[in-house]
């Protein structure tokens, strides 16, 4: 599945959030609102970070909140939450400005999306700069389309 297709307009741009869990919750609720995950999935996304630490912050300024397929994932999809002022996870990669949440119904359906994500993460610096620059979901879609097209 194409990255933008999997995102399907689930983009939220925020100036700031109270704490990391709020940003993760919003990213999960975007997936839940479209029926891609059960509400329990959103709780598991937060619990996972509380129990295992901020490992989802996997590149400078970028985090990928998710839970297990069996935690309530119903479909394959992504959401994008941008926190323009940044949010702190307690990670080497703080402050996080771009959260890309995903749901996958099994352990392999999302491999293609992870490959495309790799192309985005290779430009993590670009992504976080874009967070300061881009003000609307439309602008984000255009931007993502352009960097995904550029990638090998």
């Amino acid at each position, binding site marked *: 599945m194409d990255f933008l297709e999997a995102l399907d307009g689930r983009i939220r741009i925020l100036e700031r959030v109270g704490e990391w869990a709020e940003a993760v919750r919003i990213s999960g609720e975007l997936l839940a609102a479209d029926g891609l995950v059960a509400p329990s999935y959103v709780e598991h996304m937060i619990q*996972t970070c509380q*129990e*295992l*630490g*901020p*490992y*989802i912050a*996997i*590149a*400078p300024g*970028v985090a*990928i909140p*998710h*839970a*297990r*397929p069996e935690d309530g994932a119903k479909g394959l999809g992504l959401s994008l939450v941008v926190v323009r002022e940044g949010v702190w996870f307690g*990670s*080497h*990669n703080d402050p996080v400005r771009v959260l890309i949440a*995903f749901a*996958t119904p099994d*352990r392999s359906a*999302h*491999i293609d999306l*992870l*490959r495309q*994500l*790799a192309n*985005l*993460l*290779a*430009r*993590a610096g670009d992504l976080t700069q874009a967070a300061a620059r881009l003000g609307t979901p439309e602008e984000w879609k255009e931007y993502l389309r352009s960097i995904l097209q550029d990638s090998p």
Partner: protein
Amino acid sequence: MSGKPPIRVVAACGLGTGTALYLKMTVEEILRKAGIPAVVETADATLAPTITADIIVTGPDLAEMFRQRARAREIVAVTNYGNKAEIQEKLLAAVRRLEG
């Protein structure tokens, strides 16, 4: 190189579904290009320390946790998953330590 048995690498993350799978793809590519025969699998934070692997590749937080009790010979902590050069450098250094 072809005569050597493959090394066993575990790509680990909290749940074994997201970052671990992502790391596995990168690690396989790096080792293939370096001509190092390897079997790469994914694991979650509970399973990974129990595996008798040559190398565990994971993020810094889990690496810290694994260092206390993992059965693997080497633990590689990757800070920026988007930086293939970092992953390659740290992984190949660990492979050299195994051989040395």
